C-alpha cells in the first residue's frame, strides 16, 4: 500500500463527504467540491499507474464541469 493510494483514499473520502453533504448547499459549492473527489480518484489511478485513464479522466472532468457551467449560467440562482 503506497503513499499515493492512501492519500487518494483519504482525499476521496474528504471530497465525497464535502460533495454529498456540503456546508452551504448551492450548485456552485457542490460543483467545486466535486473537484476534490476527482483528485482522490486521480491519486488512486496514479497509485496503480493507470496513466491513460488518468489523463482521460482529467480531460473529461474539465468537459463535464463545462456542461454544468452551461446549465448554471442559464439559471439565475446559483
Amino acid at each position, binding site marked *: *500500500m503506497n503513499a499515493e*493510494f492512501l492519500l487518494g*483514499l483519504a482525499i*476521496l*473520502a474528504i471530497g*465525497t*463527504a464535502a*460533495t*454529498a*453533504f456540503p456546508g452551504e*448547499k448551492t*450548485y456552485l459549492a*457542490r*460543483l467545486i467540491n*466535486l473537484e476534490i*473527489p*476527482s483528485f*482522490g*480518484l486521480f491519486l*488512486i*489511478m496514479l497509485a*496503480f499507474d*493507470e*496513466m*491513460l*485513464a488518468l*489523463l*482521460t*479522466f*482529467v*480531460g*473529461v472532468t*474539465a*468537459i*463535464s464541469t*463545462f*456542461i*454544468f457551467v*452551461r*446549465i*448554471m*449560467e*442559464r*439559471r439565475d440562482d446559483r
Partner: protein
Amino acid sequence: MELVYPAGALVILLLVSAAFFALVRERDDLHRLLLTELVAIMTLGLIALVATDLAEALILPGLVVAISELVALSQVYIAKEGLAARPAKVRRIEVMDTAPAIVAAILVAYGIVLSGFSGGAIAAAGLVFYFMGHGHAERFALLEAASGYAWAIWIGAFFIFMILPAYWFFAVLIAGGAILLKVMVKLSLIGTMRGDPDV
C-alpha cells in the same frame, strides 16, 4: 494486492453508501445531476482498484458512458426547465482573451501526439476551452458530419482486426486516428453549444 483490494473496496463501498444517501435526501433536480457525477467517480474508483492494464482500458468506456449520459441529461434538463436563452451578461476575465488559444493549441497538439481515446479527450478539453470564449455554432453541422465519418472509419478498422488480422498495423493506425477525431470533435461540440442554436 491481497490487502490493498479489500481496503480500497471497503472505503469505496462506504463512500458509495454516503453518496447514495445524499441522493436519497436530495429533492432538487440539478443537485441530483451533480450527485450523479459523484457516483460516476465512485464507479471509476471501483474499476481502478482492479489495477491491471485491462482495468485501465475499461475505465475509458466507463468515462465515456458517464460523460455521454451527462451531456444528454443536461440537455434534457435545459429543455424541461425552458432555459433556452443564454444570459446576456457574461463574466469577463482578462486571461480569457489570451489563454484559450495558446492553451488549446498545446492541448490539441499533445492530444494528437497521444492519439486514440485519451488524446481525443485531452484535445477536446482544449477545444472546449477555446470555443467557450467564442460562438462557433455555425460549424456545428460540419463537425457532426466529420465525427460521423470518423466513426465509420473506426468501425472499418475494427473489422480489419477481426477479419484481416494480418493488416493489424493499418488497423491500429486507422483506429487510433479515427477515435481521436471522433472523440475530439464530439466532445468539443459541447463548447460550441453554449450560444444560441441558430446563429
